[in-house]
């Protein structure tokens, strides 16, 4: 699924500068705890989280994740946005809850992938 479609499904707003026209997402994981997310095994994944500090970007960086979606209307802090721009990771925010965000993406065809 293209990031543009994910943005539409979640009615999300982009918070960063990185271009995302060609980014294809193959699977998604959702967690507020980064160690749970780090056990997620898929490449080209999407991370949904309510954690709005720079460690969600560090986690995405280690996992080669291109996009982080902040759920429950969380606003990213400046340090998060700065690090994401430096690492060319797209950050979006949606007002939907974690449960609803995951459900909407799953219904639209984005799978949960495997745990490594």
């Amino acid at each position, binding site marked *: 699924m293209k990031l543009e479609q994910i943005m539409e499904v979640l009615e999300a707003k982009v918070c960063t500068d990185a271009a995302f026209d060609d980014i294809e997402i193959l699977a998604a994981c959702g967690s507020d*705890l980064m*160690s*749970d997310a780090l056990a997620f095994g898929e490449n080209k994944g999407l991370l949904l989280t309510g954690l709005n*500090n720079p460690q969600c970007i560090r*986690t995405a960086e*280690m*996992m*080669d994740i291109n996009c982080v979606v902040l759920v429950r209307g969380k606003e990213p802090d400046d340090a998060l946005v700065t690090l994401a721009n430096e690492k060319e990771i797209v950050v979006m925010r949606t007002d939907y809850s974690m449960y609803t965000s995951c459900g909407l993406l799953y219904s639209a065809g984005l799978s949960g992938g495997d745990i*490594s």
Partner: protein
Amino acid sequence: MAQVLTQKYVVGADDFAAAGAASAAVKKTLKQLSFPVDFIRRTSIAMYEGEINMVIHGGGGIASVEIYEDCVKITLADTGPGIPDIEQAMQEGFSTATDSIRELGFGAGMGLPNIKKQSDEFEIISEIGKGTKLTITLNANS
């Protein structure tokens, strides 16, 4: 097995804003050395989990990274309180993290098990009151 280079990083105690910087630097080096993508990912995840543990549990310490042609050896040594029961600490879900650490996104009790899962060799030595030394090796061809 020729050694390519050695890197050392000081990991600060409770310096949560900088946590992960050492792992990010190692990841960048491994990319520059053209290691396989999956190997870089495994190494990055394992080191990052260990680095976070040093920050939130170990009172900071030294991360030493030896990069060889076909593997990476990482030693994370802290001077923290030590782990009383390593077998218990290795169980998925076991955590001594406080609520304030969980609010920062860590403390799921997955760190050490995940490090072991990503690594080809894993050794942890801990002494109460003196600290913990974690040594892991990841082979690029495994």
